[in-house]
Every structure is written in structure tokens, then in C-alpha cells.
């Protein structure tokens, strides 16, 4: 059995995945297929661990951690079957640069809704250099997929054989065909700007937009850009929405929150940021994946 490669993949791409493939045979591995066609069984991610908590019980702990990269947040779950990773997670004091290697997982609470997460095999606290190096690797990987998808979109009809003839490996070709079949024509400019944004994140000259000079000891937080003054208002609104939309006591579903926020003029990015802040402040929590609840 040849070891599955560990993909370097941004949360911004991984979390957009809605397709799981493989698992045909008894022991065939399953893959999460991203909109750009990465077939991910294992991934390696480095980001800022912003919070970790036991969402299980004392007897059967299930550690849930959130790890942010410049494009989004990975959800990491480790329970009794990942004892080493769970122990490591439970000891980390956020915020901390953290490397995670693990298996791709999806959760489908109802048809049409898919949440992605990572089941860690390895968890380790690292330094800023390892995180920056990872961003660079993830950028290279994303750039390759963008180029391949661009060529694929120019093909008519798109076939696996055609891609192989262009020099792509069978695995890459399989991924692109599966992604295109499932997601339709992918918005490449969007992922192009995600790539540029991630690269700029590494470069000090692009940090100039920060209004106030950054404090000397910059908090090592991936989402620690200076917060606009309006952010607190957004947080208040989101907090209210979380309360309103929690109709069954199990928490406000993310989709409903997203829709309501859009109506209230809150962009998805601003909503995510506000939710992260509220989670960090301990004002809301996620009782199950994809639900937000007031504490």
C-alpha cells in the first residue's frame, strides 16, 4: 500500500468541497474532491490554532480545534481513536502556530450540506517560519491546480484522456474531471485572488494598509489584521441573529445565519470574522459542527 500524499491546501479551498469520492472497494481510500480537483485523503496544514475545547464528555473526550490560515479556518476533531493527537491538542494554549497532518473528513447533517474537517494523525506546535513556509507551499500547490483547471476549461469536450495527453498524471486528470462534473465551471478568478491574497500575506509591503502602526510585539494570530471600528456593530448584529435563528435549541444553522447576514448587509467574510471573534470571546459556541449557539 503506497502512502497517501499529504496535500498542502488552503482552508479557503478545502472548505468549499462538497464532493466525496472513492471508497468503492473494501479498503479503498476515500477522497474529498475540492472545486479545483485536488483529491484529498490526507492533508498537511499549518496555521494559528485559535481555540480548542472538549466537545465530548470527560469520559469520552472529543477535542475540537480551529486552525486559521490566511484564507479560512480548518476544523480539527480528535477523539479516542487519535489519542496522541487528542492529547497534544488538549495541551496547546491558543493562540499558537500549529502544524496538523491528518485525514480528510466530511460531515453531512442533511442532504446538500457538507462540512469538511480534519481528523489529525499528528499535531505539533511550530514557529512562524514553518507557518510561512507552509503558506508558500500551499500557494505553489494552488497555482498548479489553477493552471491545470484553466487548461481543462479550455478543452471541449473535457476528457480524462485529453488531460493525460496534455501531460497531466492520471490522478490529476481524475480529480479535474470529477470536480468539473460535480461543481460545474469553477470560478477561477476567485481562486486566483485567493492565491494573490495568500502571497501578499507573506509580504511586509502589503501590510501597509493597517491604519494604526502594528504593535511591536505583533500577536501571532493569522486573523489579527486591524479590526475596523464597525466590527463591533457587526458582532452585535451577528450575536442577535444567532439568538433569533436558534429555533430548536440546537443552535443557529450556518446556512440560515449566512442568509440572514446577507439580508442585513453583512458580507460572508465579515460574518466569518465576527463569528470567529464571538467564538474567541466565548460568547457563542458550536455545539455541533455547523451550528452556532449563545452561551
Amino acid at each position, binding site marked *: 500500500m503506497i502512502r497517501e500524499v*499529504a496535500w498542502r491546501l488552503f482552508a479557503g479551498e478545502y472548505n468549499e468541497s462538497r464532493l466525496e469520492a472513492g471508497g468503492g472497494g473494501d479498503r479503498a481510500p476515500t477522497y474529498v474532491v475540492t472545486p479545483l480537483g485536488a483529491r484529498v485523503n490526507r492533508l498537511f496544514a499549518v496555521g494559528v490554532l485559535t481555540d480548542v475545547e472538549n466537545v465530548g464528555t470527560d469520559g469520552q473526550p472529543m477535542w475540537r480545534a480551529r486552525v486559521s490560515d490566511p484564507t479560512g479556518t480548518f476544523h480539527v476533531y480528535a477523539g479516542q481513536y487519535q489519542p496522541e493527537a487528542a492529547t497534544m491538542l488538549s495541551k496547546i494554549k491558543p493562540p499558537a502556530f500549529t502544524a496538523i497532518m491528518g485525514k480528510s473528513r466530511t460531515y453531512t447533517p442533511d442532504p446538500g450540506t457538507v462540512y469538511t474537517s480534519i481528523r489529525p494523525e499528528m499535531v505539533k506546535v511550530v514557529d512562524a517560519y514553518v507557518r510561512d513556509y507552509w503558506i508558500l*507551499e500551499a500557494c505553489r500547490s494552488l497555482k498548479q491546480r489553477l493552471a491545470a483547471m484553466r487548461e481543462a476549461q479550455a478543452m471541449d469536450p473535457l476528457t480524462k484522456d485529453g488531460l493525460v495527453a496534455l501531460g497531466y498524471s492520471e490522478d490529476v486528470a481524475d480529480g479535474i474531471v470529477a470536480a468539473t462534473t460535480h461543481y460545474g465551471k469553477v470560478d477561477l478568478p476567485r481562486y486566483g485572488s485567493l492565491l*494573490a491574497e495568500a502571497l501578499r500575506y507573506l509580504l511586509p509591503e502589503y501590510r501597509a494598509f493597517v491604519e494604526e502602526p502594528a504593535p511591536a510585539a505583533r500577536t501571532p494570530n493569522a486573523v489579527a489584521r486591524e479590526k475596523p471600528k464597525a466590527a463591533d456593530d457587526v458582532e452585535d448584529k451577528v450575536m442577535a441573529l444567532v439568538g433569533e435563528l436558534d429555533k430548536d435549541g440546537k443552535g443557529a444553522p450556518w446556512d440560515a445565519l449566512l442568509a440572514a447576514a446577507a439580508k442585513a448587509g453583512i458580507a460572508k467574510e465579515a460574518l466569518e470574522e465576527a463569528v470567529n471573534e464571538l467564538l474567541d470571546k466565548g460568547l457563542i459556541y458550536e455545539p455541533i459542527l455547523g451550528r452556532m449557539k449563545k452561551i
Partner: protein
Amino acid sequence: MDMKDELEPHVRDIVRALGGKVSEQEVERELGNYLNVYRVSLDTAKRSIVKKHGGNPADLSLGVTKTVRDLVPGEQNVNLLARIVSVNEKEVETEGGSKAIRYGFLGDGTGTIPYTAWNPDGVELAKGDVVRIQNAYTKEFKGRVEVHLGARAVVTKEDDALLPAVEPSRAAPAGPATAAKVGELRERMGNVALTARVLSVEAREVKVDGEAKTVYSGVLADESGKVQFSAWKDFGLAEGDVLRIEGGYVKSWRGIPQLSFDERATVTKLAADALPPREALAQSPRMWIEDLAERGGAVDATVRGILIDVKDGSGLIYRCPECRRVLRKNTCRIHGEVQGLADLRVKAVVDDGSGALTAVFGKDLTELLLEKTIDECIAQAKEAMDQEVVRDELADLLIAQPVEIRGNVTSDDYGLMMIVDSARILKVDVQEEARAMLEELEG
């Protein structure tokens, strides 16, 4: 009916595997159903029926005789009538220690296929023999089907006249040779032509079929990589020569392609400036693990990746003074309880985003990475009363770190392995690389 006669032994085989708890009539009906209605293979049908009735498919003993060309990966109970084309022996490391196995090619009128015999003791395998093989199984490795002879395999010698002689896959050079770069050489290529510089060469005496021969071996290189070679004739090769070789053929050693050429090849010396100078070609090419996997291995490759795991058996270990096997609880599997010799090593997994390989670092490199001598490690373990402290320290130091490693890469059923010659924690200027990529992106 022919079909029925042919199936009858299989029906009995299924009934026997189920301990007689299902009747022959019932089995026959089900087998017919699987074969005619669902149209699965006989092998699959038999296994499914046994499983369905709560039996163990491994209890089936009668396989289906197949031809080499029909074999697909993942078959059980494979029966073959084949001629042994070649027999080689090697030692492999298994969970239970090292073990001698035999491997080579076998073939029939439809083709040849690699085989591996895991328990060669009770099995007679001689080059050229026609044999009947029962209860073998197949696997896929690097896109090719292989036959495996496991504990249940039975091999019996058959009449030589049953099969035609199998021609070795290496055809004598005829017609124009195929041009290739060193990096493009693949196992079993015949009649290749390439231009390369001799980086090293030495003469060795070897015995081939009891006859003493001189073989000239060393390393050749061009811009695309390096390859070990064996010349079976004295072509007067000297270090630094640039050669045009036509009519070479490629074998592999543990997955690394190796070039051989003999009196049938044409070897011409070219001008010294036909290729970049020696120093430039002696550099280790940087390669992606994906490409190494496709090639099967490489001489002196450099890989950049993340060290993602430090495996069990890393750190401070003790070896048998007789055979160098790693001891468990001061005991050698072969030589019993012995006074072990201390050694240091790291068995790591390095992943570069395109693939993963096992990287083995020996004592000197491990000391360098730890910035500690083996004696200091022994003292540390004594103080902690735990040998594992050294491994823990290595894991702490190395896991999740970007590394650059250089060495020979081999491959087997478990994937790629690099015996690391040199290694360093990789420090790159992230900002500079990010800036270059951004400029390229924005045009």
C-alpha cells in the same frame, strides 16, 4: 454440457469450503446465477458464495487456471502453467525481521510477468523449468500486475514440452536505437541510445555462470540525472569521457534503473565539451517524489519536503554484533541473547506535497541533527531509564520541519526509500519566493 463439467470441481470446492453445510445443487444453482446473470468472474463468484454462507474464502483451494495476459490485480487462488524465465534471490526486511525471498519473471505463450516467492524453501524454482503454480495471488505494483507465491502456493514441475521457450524480454539490438536522456531511462527498456559523461568507472571481476568476467561499472550523467552502468566489454572508458552509447538496455536494482551494455552496443567517444563539465553534472538533481515514484528510484537525488513522521525504531537502537539486526529486549532473532552494539538512526517519512518517501538517516547524520554524540545519547537514555527519550527528542526537533535530503532512492512494495547521504533543515527566504510568485501571477 461442457460448462457444467468444467464447473463441477469448483462446485465441490465451494461445498468443501463451507464444510458441507450447503448442498451441491444449491451451490451449483448459485454459481450459475453469479456467472450467467451477474456475469462476475469465476473467482469472485466462488468467494462471494462462500462469504454469503458464512464461510472463509481462504478455505477455497481450487483456483482457475489462467494465462499471464489474463491476470488482473487482486486475484486470489490463481493457477498458472508457466515457464520460469529468471530466478533471483534477495533479503527483505519484514515485520518479523529479514527474510530471503526469490523473485524474477515467469511467462507463457501470452506474455511474461514478475513474480515473488515469499517462502522459497518448499518451492522448487529453476530457471527454464515449466511449472504448474496453484494458489498464487496477484497484486499491482507501479501499474503492473505481479504474481505472488505466499504460504499457500504449491509449485509442481511439469513436462517441458507443455509450453514454448520464453524469449528473454531483452531483444538484441536491431534497427535504430531509441534516444533517451538519463532521466528518462526506465526498467526493461531495450536498445536505447544516449549521450552521457562518465563520472566514475572501475573494473570488477565477477562470475557469470561459473565463468570469470570483467565488468566495468560506475556512474554516467547528463543534464537530466545520473545512472549507474555496467559495461560487459572493455570499451576503454575513463572518468570524464563523453560517450555516445547505442544499443544499451536497462535493468533495475530495487527500482533504480541501471544501464547495461555489451559487445553488441556501439560506444563512441565525443568531444569533451559535448556536455556540461563534470562538476556541473555531478550535482544532485532536485526531484519531486512523484517523479521518483514513476521512475522507480534514482541515483543521488535531492528532495525538499516536510518531515512528517519519525517512525518506531528511530533514535538509540542496539544491534546484534554478529549480523547487525536490530535487537528486541537484548535478543537477536537469529543469535539469541547478545551484548548489543549501540547505534543511532532516524527512519522518517518525508512528504513534498507530490508524494511521500521513507528516509533513513544513519548514525553520523543523526548525531549531526541532534548536535550530540552517540555516547551522550547513551548517557541521556541511562539517566531517563528509557531508550525512547532519544526518539522523542528527534521527533520534537524534526517533525513538521522543512528539510532538504540527498541520497539514493530505491523502491519496493512498501514504496520509496532514500538512504540519506546529506541532510539539512531547509531555510528559504519565504518573502523573496512569495514576491517572485506574485510578480509572475500579476504579470
